[in-house]
């Protein structure tokens, strides 16, 4: 049940990101919707389950994207480690904290993409569409990112997904 839930959500997010959003004019600037999901599994699952899952997601995204191989793998790994490290010191039940984590994660991913393009790309200059892409993604994540992450947590709770002693107890999310 639990694995079906995770794989189903992953597949759904991958498919809408690559086959539906690119064809809807207003949604072409959508942020990487797997970021809230990686944060979700980092918070809620034990490391032996969530880390392989995050790495597998990174690998698949690297396969589907035209960026250098390992870019998403790198980002999801460090996002996972960062979230795991942060929740040792901060309360995860704080909705404001979760919202900030999603927004910051999307911005950091964009910075990583820009840095990769500039330092490892054929031309050492900022992509011409950099400002537009970052602005669009920032506005989208501001509007939907926190809601999406909190919905994932609520959905997991409602479906009575079993928790395996991960960082916080399930009733921590209200």
């Amino acid at each position: 049940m639990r694995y079906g839930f995770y794989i189903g959500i992953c597949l759904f997010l991958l498919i809408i990101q690559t086959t539906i959003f690119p064809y809807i004019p207003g949604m072409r600037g959508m942020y990487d919707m797997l970021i809230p999901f990686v944060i979700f599994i980092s918070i809620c699952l034990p490391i032996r389950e969530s880390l392989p899952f995050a790495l597998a997601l990174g690998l698949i995204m690297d396969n589907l994207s035209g960026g250098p191989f390992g870019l998403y793998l790198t980002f999801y790994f460090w996002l996972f480690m960062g979230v795991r490290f942060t929740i040792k010191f901060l309360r995860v039940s704080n909705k404001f904290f979760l919202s900030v984590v999603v927004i910051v994660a999307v911005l950091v991913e964009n910075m990583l993409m820009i840095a990769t393009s500039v330092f490892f790309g054929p031309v050492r200059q900022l992509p011409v569409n950099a400002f537009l892409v970052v602005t669009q993604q920032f506005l989208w994540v501001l509007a939907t990112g926190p809601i999406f992450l909190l919905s994932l947590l609520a959905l997991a709770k409602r479906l009575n997904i079993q928790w395996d002693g991960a960082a916080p107890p399930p009733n921590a999310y209200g």
Partner: protein
Amino acid sequence: MFSKKMVLIVGVLILITVNVILLSFSSKSQSTFGLGRVGLSLVSPFQELVTRSIRFARDIWEHYFFLVTVAHENENLKKSLNQFVGESNQWHEIDMANSRLRNLLNFQKAPTHKVVAAEVIGKDPSGWFKTIIIDKGKSDGLKKGLAVVLPTGIVGQVIEAAGHYSKVMLVIDRNSAVDAMVQRSRARGIIKGESADQCRFEFVLRKHDVQIDDTVIASGLDGVYPKGLRIGRVADISQRNADIFYEITVAPFVDYEKLEEVLVILPPQAQDVASQP
């Protein structure tokens, strides 16, 4: 000797360094360490299913409920067709004359290319890179480096081929470069993507004649795109005083936002030397 905290910090620093080195290596060598096809094979069947379902629903809408605009379009197309029949006849005459002259000069025949039609089933998930996933792969004869085109112009090249699916880097991607020339004046340069809707046409010497609306075509010298394939039209030209090259912006003929089907050019078959009388 060392505290636990120190070991942790050193471990993280080493991990970051290794990570940056691997990322640098993979971006320079375009290597996927043998893992490049796993995700394609796993996710692409689902992408194909969703894309086909959406197109099926849209086709029903356009073919059965949207026929008023089709009638107008039909009239316009008939007018265009009449015009193109005349032009086609003219080109046919030129083609025949060209063949005769080539035979006289004992030239090798232009290679005939086999093409495979493929459907676009997915696009790059990020806004930073411009790639598409198509529903043809190694089993259809595709491999890395093959040119992908449309009748209107160049689309890109295959950068990863799995069993039944392939990833194609579009011409507008920042990592793309096409050896090109202006069709009218034969001025040569390199078309580079900008990850936006337009491309830059670089290294065109200012001594050459380039004008707005000139057509830019592939020169064939990069070994990927056959000579003569259309790329785009010159949209803007600027000249800096100290520079020996033009700064040219090219608007591609292909609308990359609306790509649905593409043609992949397979490697040319053994050509017979045209030395017939």
